[in-house]
């Protein structure tokens, strides 16, 4: 019996300790820090998307804190893994807002994971700046009204679909387009929808639409079927460069040559190593290129430090971080404290604020970046080359 009592006492003490630890971890002890959250896919099949961004943000936080923080307050970045799943992203956002008490959140990257976060952000009155979630429903409700606490640093799918359709029809003279797309991805299906609407309006025709499921690696059936429709361009709107790498390689293995057209999800230097040869002469839309001169020094430093290549997902995440830093400073200057609702207003009203990639203004009625330029890139000698840039007026 004494032994049993001893065990019971130990369990009791342990429970008390764990309870105190849980309360302490959730309690906003430090008033001198700015708590920010990052919801990213650092594990899961597309973990490359979040891994470079995580490192880039951690570097940025160290840099800001080393310089004394924002108005003397240090940034504390809390990172949770979404695994690219909407359920995990929702759980992470709830935890960041209700338990950790963050005042701003960066991410997630995929539209499917970002769309459900609108009501959570609104309930907690915490601004969320998604990085590459480009579906219009990320920041807009079904009735077209804006989700007050949702923002994004990338451009939207209609914009990308519109630009790609115009370039294909007017500049490349293409009239018959085919698609191989991820049926489960809002991003992929969205671009298909907007491309088709604009391409057919211009007089072109979509002759084949073949789907696949996320994480598929075998596309030969779809490629053969598309080949039978004899399109003069094949669009692969994927957010994962692996898909287009495999599609282009399997097309070549089948002896089928296509004029490939793509989207910003392709832009990763690893694609050049995987299928740069097969994709030579393709065209794609993107807001950024890792070959842009402005990123040269940053890329070199990043690679030297982390031994992995930086990519556009990290750039977009840094844009979101810069925007939150700006908002925190506005809040501190105005109210003397870091208040998430004031930060939201600051983001909404920011005008030409210099972020990591460019100056940015959010449109108040959509929370999208205002007049963000879109570039047409090609692959030449296994390198990204910018062919044309559209600057909306």
């Amino acid at each position: 019996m004494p032994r049993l009592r001893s065990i019971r006492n130990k369990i009791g003490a342990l429970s008390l300790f764990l309870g105190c630890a849980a309360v302490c971890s959730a309690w906003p002890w430090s008033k001198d820090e700015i708590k920010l959250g990052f919801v990213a896919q650092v594990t899961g099949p597309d973990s490359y998307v979040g891994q470079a961004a995580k490192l880039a943000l951690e570097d940025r936080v160290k840099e800001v804190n080393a310089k004394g923080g924002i108005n003397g307050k240090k940034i504390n970045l809390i990172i949770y893994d979404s695994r690219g799943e909407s359920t995990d992203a929702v759980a992470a956002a709830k935890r960041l807002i209700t338990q950790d008490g963050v005042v701003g959140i960066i991410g997630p990257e995929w539209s499917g994971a970002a769309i459900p976060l609108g009501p959570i952000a609104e309930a907690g009155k915490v601004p969320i700046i998604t990085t590459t979630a480009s579906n219009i429903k990320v920041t807009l409700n079904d009735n077209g009204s804006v989700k007050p606490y949702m923002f994004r640093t990338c451009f939207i799918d209609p914009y990308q679909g519109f630009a790609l359709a115009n370039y294909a029809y007017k500049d490349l003279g293409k009239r018959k387009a085919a698609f191989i797309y991820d049926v489960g991805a809002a991003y992929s299906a969205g671009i298909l929808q907007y491309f088709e609407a604009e391409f057919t309006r211009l007089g072109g025709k979509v002759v084949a639409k073949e789907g696949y499921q996320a994480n598929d690696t075998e596309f030969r059936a779809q490629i053969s079927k598309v080949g039978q429709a004899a399109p003069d361009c094949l669009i692969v709107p994927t957010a994962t460069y692996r898909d287009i790498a495999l599609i282009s390689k399997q097309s070549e293995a089948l002896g089928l040559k296509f004029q490939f057209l793509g989207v910003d999800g392709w832009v990763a230097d690893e694609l050049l190593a995987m299928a740069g040869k097969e994709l030579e002469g393709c065209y794609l839309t993107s807001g950024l290129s890792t070959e842009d001169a402005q990123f040269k020094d940053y890329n070199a430093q990043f690679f030297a430090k982390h031994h992995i290549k930086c990519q556009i997902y990290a750039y977009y995440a840094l844009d979101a971080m810069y925007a939150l830093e700006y908002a925190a400073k506005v809040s501190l200057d105005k109210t003397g404290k870091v208040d998430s609702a004031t930060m939201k207003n600051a983001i909404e009203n920011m005008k030409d604020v210099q972020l990591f990639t460019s100056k940015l203004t959010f449109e108040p009625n959509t929370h999208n970046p205002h007049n963000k330029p879109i570039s047409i890139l090609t692959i030449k000698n296994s390198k990204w080359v910018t062919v044309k840039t559209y600057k909306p007026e």
Partner: protein
Amino acid sequence: MTFFLQQLVSGISIGAIYSLLAVGYALVYSVYNFTNWAFDAFMVTGAFAAFYGITLFFMPFAVAIVFSIVMTVGLALFVETTAYRPLRARQAPRLFMMISAMGASLAAVNLANILFGGAFRKFPDIATGAYRIAGVSVGKMDLFAAAFSCVVLSLLWWFLERTKLGLGVRASALDTVTAGIMGVNNNKIALIIFGISGVLSAVAGVFFGAKYAVFPYLGLVTIKAMIGSIIGGIGSLVGAVLGSLLLGILETMISSYVSSVYRDLISFSILVLVLLFFPSGLMGAKRVDKL
């Protein structure tokens, strides 16, 4: 006709990869009556070992395959001795072994993700290009992978049918308890079975990596192999090969002639139908003489 033949070739090449893994599933199931969910971890180990063997240590492809097999067999034996054997010794329910396998799988895949990162790696070119036979394109790597897989499966058949150790494995598969009573060392048989599973998943991992890409989550394909194994009759080695080839061909034909969007829906509906009419799978009725 050319289109049909092309799809048939594509389907067989997909099914060949499923087959190697499905046989591994069947082998473990036939003896221990549980599904080894750690196969994806074995496969990932095989693919990464060969990839780094070639790119870091400049091994020739053949040496890299051997290196990959050694590493994967090592992991398989480690999992068997640390995750399964203690549970068997305590006569734990089969469900616990499956959960233990899932834990081992998640741990290994996440470790690979942390150690190597989530990027997709291009396997060094081994057999690129394709032969064109009567308008049908047959990839050189597909042919090589299929031929190598046939050799490996033939060796496995020879081992099981023509050697004393193979006889022990077959005896355990027929009745593990009675075989133990008759003097068969079941722990030794377990090591042999997991060793063979390691070889099969290493080969599958290498060829999957060479055909597609090397990345920590490439083992997701093992779920298809398990389904192939179930269609064929789980526990039956011939059934596993047959079921996997059927699944590969079925997926390709549905994508080609019906819709790629409905591929999984129709494929898995057919699986349900097969199980309704053949609860033990297509070859399940011959369970007694499956080896």
